[in-house]
């Protein structure tokens, strides 16, 4: 059990690193927005894994709040992209 959780943490950290590289490189603005959304999803996954790791259920609530906020942020970014406005790709 312990080993599985550690492997999950390692893989999630690796994916976070890859997403961060995409966020920095991202040729266009939509790429960066998608990278940010994915980053939020990975944070939710890490919080969930940490809840199993520490055996405390209160981290689940943190995961819920982060997921809801990320959904809201996705809509906000989509709104911004749809309306146009100044862009610096």
């Amino acid at each position: 059990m312990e080993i599985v959780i550690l492997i999950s943490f390692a893989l999630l950290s690796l994916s976070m690193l890859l997403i961060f590289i995409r966020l920095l490189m991202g040729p266009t603005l939509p790429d960066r927005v998608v990278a940010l959304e994915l980053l939020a999803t990975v944070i939710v996954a890490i919080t969930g894994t940490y809840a199993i790791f520490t055996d405390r259920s209160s981290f689940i609530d943190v995961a819920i709040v982060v997921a809801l906020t990320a959904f809201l942020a996705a809509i906000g970014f989509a709104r911004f992209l749809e309306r146009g406005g100044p862009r610096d790709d």
Partner: protein
Amino acid sequence: MMKPGTIILYTAARFLVPLQLLFSVFLLLRGHNEPGGGFIAGLVAAGAFTLYLFTFGSAVTRDLMRVDPRNLIGIGLFIGMLSVFPAVFQGQAFLTAQWWPIMLPGGTEIKLSTPLIFDIGVYLTVVGATMTMIIALTEAEER
């Protein structure tokens, strides 16, 4: 506003807004000794209203909130101030927590307290302040 016909957003908002408001009340009432409390609960509730705002526009959101968010700030500060006085009447220092445990029939105990009243005040203030800012920004954008 968003393009008409974004059925995914409409459906998601219809389902998520009540659930998120319920979750915010859960966070508010659980606070103090457990994770939660007025501030984060207020932010979650403001998130729910913002989702509604993004979907249906600012006029409908004002209708949904019933109260002007600016009034909510004042009401919240007033409720927060009310929680100061019970300690003074007991002859203790300002803001000392007072607990009134109540036994419900069935063996459940709820602990009512002045920190709960203060948290409700913080909740209303945070919802009011956040929604005032967001609605003002959206209306400036629509004009």
